[in-house]
């Protein structure tokens, strides 16, 4: 505990007490959490008919890392949770509309689960075929290198995708080509019902090190610890134009999706991690080191609630893609159009 406090204190010294930056990260986390909970309510009330996944407990990594990214940096988010998009600056209205399948969503509600393409913010779509995004990320980083652009790619992935054959090939290629990409693996230990330890006898660290991609790991539930590690990795990727890999150790405190109650998860383990909730940990940190007051934090919570509710109310009144306009003009697969 003492060591942890020293570590955190050191992180703050390294950061030079960027008070606003840390409070902004907190706001992203709380906003993503609030949105997550509200969408769950809608799903339970059968107002969302599609499958819904929760990102609760996983907000820290995406919130911290997106706060360190430049607007021109490319983000390929993971499918679970909203902190990626909120952190990169996408409006709640667009996120909510997309989740509710409305035409006002970034991908008009028809592109697939949680697609938030925004070319101004450089948010690109993830693929629902897990194990494809990091390949695409290497392709985009290759383009950056070829065009001598000053930006990097950050791609998020889950531990479940690391058993795909594409995983090692991608790391191998990224190291070989020396392209500016940061792979962020949110290791929440579960690939739906399968534990990471049931799928591999070697750790991710061993696998990544074997590829030649620079590796680091950190507690994924403690934002203040993630911050300096992610910052130095991003700087490395940017300056060396080389790939790096960050493993965030965390735990999926929810089922795979809302219909999954996670009956296969160990209750004691789950409880342990629920106590390690990143928002709770970060609140304690911010108050202990006097970066924010209790009032600051409750103001953040209030603002998040208001913003989410405004966005929800607006999106609920928006329309869905109509069959007529879809068939007449909106078929985006047709190739002979400009």
């Amino acid at each position, binding site marked *: 505990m003492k060591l942890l406090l020293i570590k955190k204190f050191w992180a703050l010294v390294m950061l030079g007490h960027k008070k606003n930056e840390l409070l902004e990260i907190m706001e992203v986390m709380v906003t993503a959490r609030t949105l997550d909970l509200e969408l769950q309510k809608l799903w339970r009330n059968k107002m969302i008919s599609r499958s819904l996944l929760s990102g609760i407990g996983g907000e820290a990594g995406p919130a911290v890392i997106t706060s360190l990214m430049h607007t021109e940096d*490319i983000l390929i988010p993971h499918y679970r949770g909203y902190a990626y998009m909120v952190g990169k600056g996408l409006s709640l209205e667009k996120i909510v509309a997309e989740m509710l399948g409305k035409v006002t969503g970034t*991908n*008009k509600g*028809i*592109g*697939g689960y949680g*697609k938030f*393409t925004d*070319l101004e913010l450089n948010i*690109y*779509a993830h*693929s629902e*075929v897990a194990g*494809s995004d990091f*390949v*695409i*990320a*290497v*392709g*985009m*980083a*290759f*383009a*950056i290198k*070829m*065009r001598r652009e000053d930006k990097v790619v950050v791609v998020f992935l889950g531990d479940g995708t690391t058993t795909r*054959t*594409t995983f090692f*090939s*991608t790391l191998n*290629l990224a190291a070989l080509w020396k392209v500016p990409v940061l792979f962020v693996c949110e290791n929440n230990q579960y690939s739906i019902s399968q534990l990471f330890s049931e799928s591999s006898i070697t750790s991710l660290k061993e696998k990544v090190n074997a590829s030649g991609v620079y590796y680091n790991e950190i507690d994924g539930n403690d934002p203040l610890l993630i911050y300096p590690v992610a910052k130095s990795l991003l700087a490395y990727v940017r300056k060396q134009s080389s790939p790096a890999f960050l493993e965030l150790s965390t735990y999926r405190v929810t089922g795979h999706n809302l219909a999954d109650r996670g009956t296969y998860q160990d209750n004691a383990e789950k409880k342990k991690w629920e106590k390690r909730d990143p928002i709770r940990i970060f609140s304690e940190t911010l108050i202990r080191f006097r970066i924010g007051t209790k009032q600051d934090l409750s103001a953040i919570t209030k603002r998040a609630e208001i913003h989410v509710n405004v966005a929800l109310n607006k999106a609920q009144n928006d329309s869905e893609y109509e069959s007529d306009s879809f068939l007449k003009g*909106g*078929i*985006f*697969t047709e*190739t*002979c159009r*400009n």
Partner: protein
Amino acid sequence: MQELTFAEAIQKGLREKMLNDDRVFIIGEDIGILGGRYNVTRGLLKEFGPKRVIDIHLIEELFLGIALGAAQGGLIPVVEFLTSNFLLLGLSDVNRLGAWKFINVGKVRLPIIIRAPYGMYHSYGPELSGDYLSVFYNIPGIQIVIPRTPEDAYNFICASIDSKDPVLFMEHESFYSMKAEVSKKPVTLCGNSEIIQNGSDCSIISYGYTTNLARESVKLLHENVSVEIVNLITLKPLDIKTILKSVRKTGRALLIEEGRLGASVTSALAHLIREFNPKIRIAQLGARDIPLPFGPLAKLIVPSQLDISQAVLNLMK
């Protein structure tokens, strides 16, 4: 006007586009020093350097994911596969390339050219010979181009590189050394076919190698049958107007494909023709639903000249 082999004609197109646009790059196995299995890229490494002529190792599962990322990042990748069989390793990606514009509701376009040698007539056995056009035909969002002459190869590789959406550029393995005159022509990928022989009794509709086979076969017909041959250069989008115009005139259609019959390209054509006019007599020829034997027995599986002429005569009965 220049006389070029099919392989040289593809290279001519690639070279011109690479010279004009530094976003264009080519990637594939052994395409650098070796110049590719069919010499299409010979010399390009020397001319454009290793940044634009990229030799890549055995990761076909990644080729099109890399291409997707590169295209999304502003480049124009031309991806060479060793054979269409190996393209099957990237089948999930082909589906993704076709769907990507839709997924991104038009915000992202993918100018990607997939070059895949294919063919069932060269007896390399079940794992290195294949057509698979029926598989790709059923994936929305992918344009399929099948050049039949060096001139097609040149003009259509240029048009494919100019296209904003993914193109599957299928090169028949027996065509590479074919030599003919090549001149520049504006061509469209939006449904393209040619009538290579006019006739009034029966239409033969095919693509690539089997079109040539049909032409030879018809020459050998002793009977007085006037055959019209329609060659499809783009399989997708299909030039349905030309097809229907021809079958309306002749009232008979022999549809030939190199791939296996079944849920196939010619079945799709037959359906379209039947919907247009149920009275038109239709016959289909294609490969049998058996893995292709290695060696000369392969000819038992694919349509022969004799099969074609007999099918024409049967339609005339």
